[in-house]
């Protein structure tokens, strides 16, 4: 018991910080690039905009290809690439890169479906004002899709939190790393339990905050 507290005292702060930065960076990258991809998919698929089957299918295929890989396998596949980029892949930065690669196509589909929920009539009305595509997307489609978009971010953050534990298994840090190294390898069940409880609390908190925000932007 004392050991457990000792281990947590010494490592938990750093582990939490690592997880936080990895998930944070991956979420930011995933939302930014994922949204861009989602807009591309949406515009090339939608009859009222610029339907382009070839672009849509090529982009869609790449997105699906990355998404079809289990994260652990994606991670292994990415290790040489990350090594090339930053030298040592077994760091929080390396983990953040791997998580970002997973986050982009994941969020692209989430955001695309949020956009697709927007009624065609609303888009027709926006087009009828003579607005350019950029304005229609950002001032009409986006505000209308905002609640679904925010719920999509929450979903992404929680998924990334889960993935970040796998990044831990290859030694890139974070609370997953903590749980594996001490809880599993050194039979410190207390650490394992503490990490599990912590994850439950964090996920609940993220969901609660996300729901509150989504509700606030729904009118």
């Amino acid at each position: 018991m004392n050991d457990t507290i000792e281990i947590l005292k010494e490592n938990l702060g750093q582990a939490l910080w690592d997880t936080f930065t990895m998930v944070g960076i991956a979420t930011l990258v995933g939302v930014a690039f994922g949204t861009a991809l989602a807009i591309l998919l949406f515009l090339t698929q939608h009859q009222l905009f610029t339907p382009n089957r070839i672009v849509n299918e090529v982009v869609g295929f790449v997105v699906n290809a990355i998404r079809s890989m289990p994260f652990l396998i994606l991670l292994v596949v990415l290790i040489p690439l990350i090594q090339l980029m930053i030298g040592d892949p077994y760091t929080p930065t390396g983990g953040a890169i791997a998580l970002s690669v997973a986050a982009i196509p994941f969020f692209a589909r989430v955001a695309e479906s949020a956009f697709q929920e927007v009624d065609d009539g609303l888009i027709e009305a926006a087009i009828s004002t003579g607005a350019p595509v950029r304005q229609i997307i950002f001032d009409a489609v986006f505000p209308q899709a905002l609640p679904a978009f925010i719920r999509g971010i929450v979903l992404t953050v929680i998924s990334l939190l889960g993935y970040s534990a796998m990044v831990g298994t290859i030694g890139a840090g974070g609370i997953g790393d903590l749980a594996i190294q001490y809880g599993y390898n050194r039979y410190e069940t207390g650490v394992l339990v503490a990490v599990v409880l912590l994850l439950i609390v964090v996920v609940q908190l993220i969901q609660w905050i996300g729901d509150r925000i989504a509700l606030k932007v729904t009118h």
Partner: protein
Amino acid sequence: MADIITLDDVSVVFESDGRPVEAVSHATVHVEEGEIFGIVGFSGAGKSTLVRTINLLERPTSGHVIIDGRDVTALRGAALRELRSGIGFVFQSFNLIDNVTVAQNIAFALKAAHVPKARRRARIEELLRLVGLEEKIDSYPSQLSGGQKQRVSIARALANHPRILLCDEATSALDLETTEEILALLKRINAELGVTIVFITHQFDVAKAIFDHVAVMEHGVIVEQGTTFDVFGSPRHETTRALVERYLGVAIPKQLVPQLPSGRLIELRYKDEGAFEPLISDVSRRFEVSINVLHGNVGYFGTQAIGTLVVLVSARQEGQRGAFVVQAAIDELTSRVADARELSVALNDDIGASVDAIFADDADGVDGTDTSAHTAGAHHGNAHKEVLA
């Protein structure tokens, strides 16, 4: 007056399951500046598709869209956007952005027309005053009633001083009272701002209340068009008849049928100053027939009236001579009204079987006018035949 909109031989072909489907087929329409032009027809007739070609929301497969004398059919990019900002569009389902305020919804249209931010608020206030919703400027659409939402969408459509306003079933999602309010508002916009309105609807009440000219559509084809009064006063096409029937149509309670004297049932339709009472009494005196008035109805088209009267013409004497006199009386009646037809029911023989097709099914037809007209219209639409072409 000059045409502000001309649709010249416009066709729109969709691809459906690999097969071409012609939603609009060779439609030619002339809309005069400053009028309210209506397109009516049952749902699926291609009205929405046709009206969408005017601002090129739907691009014609063939034919030309001419606005203000300029062929705009091939416009793209900035020129197309500029055209659209000068044409307002009001939808059945309002199509407001739910998660932004009324002001922001209208600001969207202003931004599209490059109105500087500083000038938007004043214009929004002005527009909301016009539609009577000043106090809702910072409300969200979900806080508004259907009628209020439609007012906002009208304000949005008028934001950039359009000369044309397109309304796609703009009142079809609203209750009767709200419909009247919205129609009054549109009429006012038409009269005060001189905005030309193209309005499509399947609601006859709406059509006869506000349209100057009307086109009737069916299966993508315009089957009839002209002034509202002429088209609805003497409908030539089946679809027009069916639409008019639903509104003016007759219904006679079934219970009444066995009590009727034998004779022939004629529906007379007269327009405007058709002097009716003298006609009935005059004919019955001159032809030795009895004329029972079973049903009467007057519909107003703007200031003009269209009346419908169902009469039972029966001979005062039996036999060959009687039948001849009845025919002569019917000929006379027919020649003196705008339109007439015989309702195909043989009152003196097999009543029960043939009557269902034309008479109201239940007692709600007793008042003989409004409610019954709607239920009965569909039934007897096929049952009658014309006396005279």
